[in-house]
């Protein structure tokens, strides 16, 4: 079946512009995660959605970052007034659920964001 998809695959923007990154999780997966990976670095957790529960936004680095998940499926990560330090690969993952903590996360290919 189809995996997690993300669009665009690459995004180049100018400092100060807003960007929207999209994630399509695997059908039926109730948990969705956004991560950021800077060059040569590990994964930085940004936000987590689980079903209809309130999202865990504890990883968002500033109020310029926001995310929503519509209808329990597609998610959009929005970065307002982009800064050069926002340049990174943004990864989305989904899992069947996260109630027990054992479900595998499946990752999309990522969106490479470059802020000039």
């Amino acid at each position: 079946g189809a995996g997690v998809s993300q669009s665009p695959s690459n995004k180049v923007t100018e400092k100060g512009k807003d960007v929207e990154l999209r994630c399509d999780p695997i059908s039926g997966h109730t948990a969705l995660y956004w991560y950021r990976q800077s060059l040569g670095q590990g994964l930085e957790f940004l936000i987590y959605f689980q079903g209809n529960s309130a999202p865990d936004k504890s990883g968002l680095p500033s109020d310029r970052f926001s995310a929503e998940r519509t209808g329990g499926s597609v998610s959009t990560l929005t970065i307002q007034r982009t800064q050069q330090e926002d340049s990174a690969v943004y990864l989305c993952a989904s899992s069947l659920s996260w109630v027990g903590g054992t479900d595998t996360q499946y990752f999309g290919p990522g969106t490479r964001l470059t802020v000039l």
Partner: protein
Amino acid sequence: AQSVAQPEDQVNVAEGNPLTVKCTYSVSGNPYLFWYVQYPNRGLQFLLKYITGDNLVKGSYGFEAEFNKSQTSFHLKKPSALVSDSALYFCAVSPRERAGNNRKLIWGLGTSLAVNP
């Protein structure tokens, strides 16, 4: 603070030799343990996980990992390395006991594996 350590930034092995990528954790209780791999210019892929039972877990592409409770380790191993195994490997831990809304995986910083022909 709970943490995951991958003590080696880079591991180099010759093709055909056994490989080990190390992971240790500092998490209370008996956590769930995961390994993921990231091939160049690609997203992360799941390799294997330990939930319960046999301490030796077998996963994709001939990889295995051994859970060692006393050493709080979950090292990734493969008996015979391939050049195509060259990639970035991440260890991640999910605590069994959760406080509040803490449902995030705790990730190591990754180990770059280079298999030389």
